[in-house]
């Protein structure tokens, strides 16, 4: 068989597709990223904030999109669709149709003149029709690629050639191409990743919600847009009927989820409880009056993720009302208000008036995607999500095709990102022989040494068509620039970023022997990399460069004051020149990589991580504190899908033990760690030293045993009281004694969601219900009672809950104010608990009582986190670099986490996270060196007092005290260049390269020089 193709197709440009593409492109594969719409970003780009951190969605997403858009090894195919996939793993042929954009992306500068002049307004689908856009449009302000597109259905010209065509007339760069036609192409790839996402459920059919009948009943996605600063009401939160600010908002949960009657969606959409709380919290923040009353109507509150329960608690403290009730009827009231009629738990009908009702709609698969999957012969499950198995959570039914994100089950962003990396691990692992075979690499000429030269500054002033020139007198600015000290060349360009100007700029740098360059044009955030690359091509260091933002921050915002805008442009150029004068060439820092991984913990997470890396040819040292492999999973009977753990585990252990790339260090712990990404040195308890480039922490967690205290429930006192894992032991041993039981009871949330452990253990509801079903299998006549607080069978697990009810398992809800009472009556267990529906106390006599006890962090995680300089949550779980977008990375580069030490999770999620950690680790291990920040802090030891304030404010532990000299030193490999240390230092002993105090002051002083 030939070597596989070293490229991968990723279908879907949402967060999971983008993450998968970035992981692959950064670990040696060429990626084609296909996106149906005109810009990548997916559903996440439509969100206002994200839970539980309340991060601005666009803010955290944008850098990833920009990275994907610019990546040399990602071929972005927007407005494109997959038609067909042929072949198998390693060798696939994909047919793609690229629909016309009618705008030449090479030429479009996204100035927006076209849209301004376009006479055709249509509902903006990005705002779910709440606002309008033009027929030529940008999907959203931060769109990647930042290029306009023509909507062929709306465009007047395309429908009636000869009419309109204004856009073409006004486009300053001649980018409009009405003759654009669909193209078909065939790509050869080694593997495919489907990241097709979801669509929000359309509640139009649920007439009782009043949606579409009442303007002030909106879906949650519509509400996101109403909250978003870039949405139709620019973040002012106006209700649709009269643009007034709502003072009373109600959220209705489970609209289109957990409903087999009207919505035909038996699954739970997993994310709605959290996003509703988030919206309630954010709406309160948005509220100008400050007395917004938010009410959430729900059946089970599902805050099962990391930090979610605390978020829920906080929301309650902040006065968000949570009503355990479902509203049947939404009635119209005065002033377009709405009355919700609901029954409380006591069975009383209550009418309550609201100004706005938000339907927390679920997630479903787009019918077009369903069709595509059918065409591609990808197996779907009963809910039309892509079918996967618990032990290979990102593999589809078709070899070589992987899946990630909400297309395989409704899930939140971190889970999607995790799976994206896992899918990248799957695809990359399969193609590892072909790594770096199809990637491109940029070569640059050697750089001229400019140290001894006096500054020779070139200034390029861009007109940006008329974007700048129509407001700012660019000639005046150019002439002014020419006279500034150090400037030897100044020129005005129509489009400085156009390919010909770029080429000419490189020539000018060489010819004029420029050693500093200033471009006065748009924003460095999008264009700095392009110009910096030009400097490199012209043979000078890319850090000898500054930009003056005279478009986004000048001509566009001061259109009414052209003279003042011109003055400002001069100031900005002068500031940039002053700054660039002090710029010095900086090294392109790299850290050489020791191509070996250290994996700590040999449970399922650790073994999967280790194997995923070892099977790609990377040596792994797998350290386990016990003398035996398998960890927690040894005690675990089966997954909720009914797959027996033992079979999988034995197979996994065999593969680990027989893999020559894995060094097993059993009965061993970590003593000491030094170094940073690419070059860690770790000392093991057995005295061995391991040099490794990356580390994966997968040390697991423990099961809480309520031997005493309020959650004891006779545990350890009556032999028939077990924890979940103890009952699993009896299943594993085929304990005959279980068959004869007449009655069994489970108590949920034992030690979870309580003051001393205020988080949800995520797995116990599903695990307990599966066990109850297993007991029913053993004896269908057994009466089984589940005493729960909220059933949290998120996603497809909801089917299990339904099955349990179907089989007659009785669920009785309790809360912290009404705990079940358990006592021993002469060796027999008696439970009394109030059934809140009928308002009576129910007395049970179970012969078996199972406690769904918490998953708690291991006590020794703290020491490990200190060794690796990783943070921990208050609960004692390890804390990832970013809850949303970096779910398996630590803030410390080169260290990753997987499994229960991160947060309680079921085995399929553990495996996905372990694969994700391997993918992230492979991004480092696949390289000889990893790039490090060039703009880093630097200590002047002569000035340093050793007070260590710099080390304390550094979030990356990049500044440390040299024990010998007593002075601070910077590890440039770890420094991110934020400058927190510089600002904290009283002695001016630490500075940031090219962003030192002197340079910033030069810019400030230059700004004030003339006025």
């Amino acid at each position: 068989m030939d070597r596989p193709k070293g490229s991968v197709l990723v279908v879907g440009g949402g967060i999971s597709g983008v993450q998968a593409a970035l992981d692959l492109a950064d670990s040696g594969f060429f990626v084609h990223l296909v996106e149906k719409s005109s810009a990548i970003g997916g559903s996440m780009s439509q969100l206002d904030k994200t839970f539980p951190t309340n991060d601005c969605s666009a803010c955290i997403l944008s850098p990833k999109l920009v990275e994907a858009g610019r990546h040399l090894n990602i071929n972005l195919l927007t407005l494109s669709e997959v038609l067909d996939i042929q072949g198998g793993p390693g060798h696939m042929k994909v047919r793609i149709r690229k629909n016309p954009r009618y705008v030449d992306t090479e030429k479009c500068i996204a100035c927006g003149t076209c849209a301004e002049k376009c006479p055709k307004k249509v509902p903006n689908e990005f705002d779910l029709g709440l606002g309008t856009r033009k027929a030529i449009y940008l999907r959203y302000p931060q769109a990647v690629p930042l290029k306009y597109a023509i909507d062929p259905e709306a465009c007047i010209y395309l429908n009636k050639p000869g009419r309109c065509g204004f856009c073409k007339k006004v486009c300053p760069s001649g980018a409009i191409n009405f003759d654009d036609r669909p193209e078909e192409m065939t790509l050869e790839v080694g593997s495919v990743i489907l990241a097709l996402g979801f669509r929000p459920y359309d509640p139009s059919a649920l007439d009782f919600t009043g949606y579409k009948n009442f303007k002030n009943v909106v879906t949650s996605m519509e509400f996101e847009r109403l909250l978003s600063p870039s949405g139709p009401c620019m973040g002012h939160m106006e209700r649709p009927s009269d643009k007034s600010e709502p003072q009373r908002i109600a959220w209705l949960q489970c609209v289109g989820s957990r409903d087999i009657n009207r919505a035909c969606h038996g699954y739970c959409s997993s994310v709605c409880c959290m996003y509703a709380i988030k919206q309630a919290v954010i709406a309160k923040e948005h509220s100008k009056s400050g007395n917004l009353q938010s009410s959430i109507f729900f059946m089970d509150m599902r805050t099962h993720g990391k930090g979610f329960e605390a978020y829920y608690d906080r929301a309650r403290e902040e006065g968000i009302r949570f009503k355990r009730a479902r509203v049947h009827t939404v009635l119209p009231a005065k002033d377009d208000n709405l009355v919700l009629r609901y029954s409380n738990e006591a069975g009383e009908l209550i009418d309550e008036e609201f100004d706005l009702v938000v339907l927390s709609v679920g997630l479903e698969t787009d019918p077009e995607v369903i069709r595509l999957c059918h065409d591609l012969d990808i197996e779907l499950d009963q809910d039309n999500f892509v079918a996967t198995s618990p032990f290979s959570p990102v593999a589809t039914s078709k070899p070589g095709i992987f899946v990630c994100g909400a297309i395989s089950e409704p899930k939140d962003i971190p889970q999607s990102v995790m799976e994206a990396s896992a899918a990248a691990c799957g695809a990359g692992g399969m193609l590892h022989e072909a790594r770096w075979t199809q990637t491109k690499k940029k070569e640059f000429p050697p750089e001229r040494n400019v140290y001894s030269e006096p500054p020779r500054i070139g200034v390029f002033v861009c007109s940006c068509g008329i974007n700048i020139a129509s407001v700012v007198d660019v000639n005046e600015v150019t002439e002014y620039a020419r006279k500034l000290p150090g400037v030897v060349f100044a020129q005005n360009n129509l489009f400085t970023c156009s390919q010909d100007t770029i080429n000419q700029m490189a020539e000018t740098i060489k010819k004029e022997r420029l050693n500093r360059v200033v471009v006065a044009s748009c924003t460095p955030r999008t264009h700095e990399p392009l110009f910096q690359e030009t400097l490199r091509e012209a043979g000078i260091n890319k850090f000898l460069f500054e930009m003056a933002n005279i478009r986004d921050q000048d001509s566009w915002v001061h259109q009414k004051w052209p003279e003042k805008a011109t003055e400002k442009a001069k100031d900005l150029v002068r500031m940039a020149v002053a700054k660039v004068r002090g710029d010095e060439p900086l090294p392109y820092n790299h850290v050489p990589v020791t191509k070996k991984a250290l994996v700590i913990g040999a449970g399922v997470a650790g073994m999967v991580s280790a194997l995923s890396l070892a099977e790609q040819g990377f040596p792994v040292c797998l350290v386990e504190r016990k003398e035996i492999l398998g960890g927690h999973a040894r005690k675990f009977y089966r997954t909720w899908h009914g797959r027996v753990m033992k079979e999988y585990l034995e197979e996994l252990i065999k593969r680990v033990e027989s893999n020559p790339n894995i060094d097993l260090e059993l009965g061993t712990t970590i003593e000491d760690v030094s170094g940073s990404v690419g070059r860690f040195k770790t000392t093991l308890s057995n005295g061995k030293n391991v040099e490794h480039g990356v580390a994966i922490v997968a040390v697991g967690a423990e099961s809480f045993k309520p031997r005493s205290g309020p959650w004891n429930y006779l545990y350890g006192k009556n032999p028939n009281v077990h924890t979940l894992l103890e009952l699993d032991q009896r299943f594993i041993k085929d304990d005959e004694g279980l068959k004869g039981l007449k009655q069994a009871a489970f108590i949920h949330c034992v030690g979870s969601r309580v003051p001393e452990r205020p988080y949800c253990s995520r797995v116990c509801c599903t695990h307990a219900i599966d066990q109850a079903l297993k007991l029913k299998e053993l004896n269908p006549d057994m009466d089984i009672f589940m005493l729960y607080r909220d059933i949290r069978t998120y996603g497809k697990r909801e089917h299990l809950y339904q099955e349990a009810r179907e089989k007659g398992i009785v669920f009785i809800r309790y809360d912290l104010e009404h705990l079940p009472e358990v006592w021993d009556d002469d060796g027999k267990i008696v439970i009394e608990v109030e059934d809140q529906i009928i308002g009576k106390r129910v007395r049970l006599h179970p012969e078996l009582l199972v406690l769904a006890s918490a998953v708690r962090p291991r006590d020794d995680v703290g020491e490990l986190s200190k060794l690796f300089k990783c943070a921990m949550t208050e609960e004692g779980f390890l804390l990832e670099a970013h809850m949303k977008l970096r779910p398996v990375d630590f803030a410390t580069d080169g260290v990753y986490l997987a499994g229960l030490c991160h947060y309680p999770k079921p085995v399929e999620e553990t495996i996905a996270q372990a694969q994700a950690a391997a993918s992230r680790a492979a991004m480092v291990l696949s390289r000889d060196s990893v790039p490090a920040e060039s703009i880093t802090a630097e200590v002047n030891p002569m000035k340093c007092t050793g007070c260590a304030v710099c080390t304390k404010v550094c979030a990356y532990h990049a500044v440390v005290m040299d024990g010998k000299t007593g002075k601070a030193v910077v590890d440039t490999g770890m420094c991110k260049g934020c400058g927190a240390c510089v600002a904290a230092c009283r002695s001016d002993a630490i500075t940031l390269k090219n962003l030192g105090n002197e340079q910033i002051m030069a810019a400030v002083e230059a700004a004030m020089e003339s006025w």
Partner: protein
Amino acid sequence: MSTVNEKIAGQIQQIATQLLESKEVALFLGYTQGTVPGAMQPFVARDVEDAKRLSWSSFCVVNLANYLPGLLRSLEPPRRPNEPPPEGPLPKVGVVATGCWSRNMVVQIQENQIDRERVVIVGVPSRGMVDRRKLQESVGQREITSIQEDDNSLLIRGNGFEKVINRWDVIRDNCQTCVHPDPVIYDRLVGSLSGDRNIPDRFRQVEEIEALSVEERWNWFQEEISSCIRCYACRNVCPLCYCPTCFVDDSRPQWVGKSKEQVDTALFHIVRAYHCAGRCTDCGSCESVCPMGIKMRLFTRKLQKDCLELFDFEPGLDPDIPLPLTTYSTSDPEDFILTQIRKGDEK
């Protein structure tokens, strides 16, 4: 019957003697009688003989912590700034510390300026030190030839006059408003601890300034610093000002002009005070040594008050609580942030 201070002096001598004799310390830092009547000056005892010269009175106004890092370094073999210190245990220094000095030492420990292992702290609960300006005022501006201290009064003699004044009346402002007169850390204790004091209006002087209008405050500030001769005595006496190159002396970048222009003087005082933010323990040395009588303590006192209000922090009480500017809390006040103010206004 000897006075409290005399007893303290005696005990200091005794402890110093014992420490020096036993070679537990190489040097002992304390106070000795100065030449001017009533004046005390910092003094390093190197042997038992020197120890006899150690003394104590209500005139020990300079914070001894300032000399500690230098003394400790003097006991190390000479080395270049970035050269490592020698291996092995180094000689120790004994030092007398009142409440504020000891708190200062805590900050110094937190900032790696002194090694706790190398200092033997002799704690002296402070009864307050005399403000020489107040003293002088109390006798008009007449020349003082001798001062005799009693526990609660001072007998002042000059050419042709003799006056007994209440001791507390001439105690420095910082001592009068001090709430932690007891040493926070010490290895030996002289006298007995008096406990924290409750002074509800301890920031009264700051509050009085705060109550002024903006222009009045500006005028006060300008007037206060107008007499500054940029001698930097305040900086030099401050144990927290230990930078090898002070920002005022820096030329790249030049934060502050070298001239006597009022703007530069203002910037000097602003930055000096700000550099002490969250660190200053209000020992009052700066004010005590200012030849021009500038009340620069008010600047640092303001920052001290704000640190307490904003971050619930007082420096020097516990080496394990990080200094306020080296840490943060997610719930730190931000009512001064424009976008937050606007949000508040709308509500």
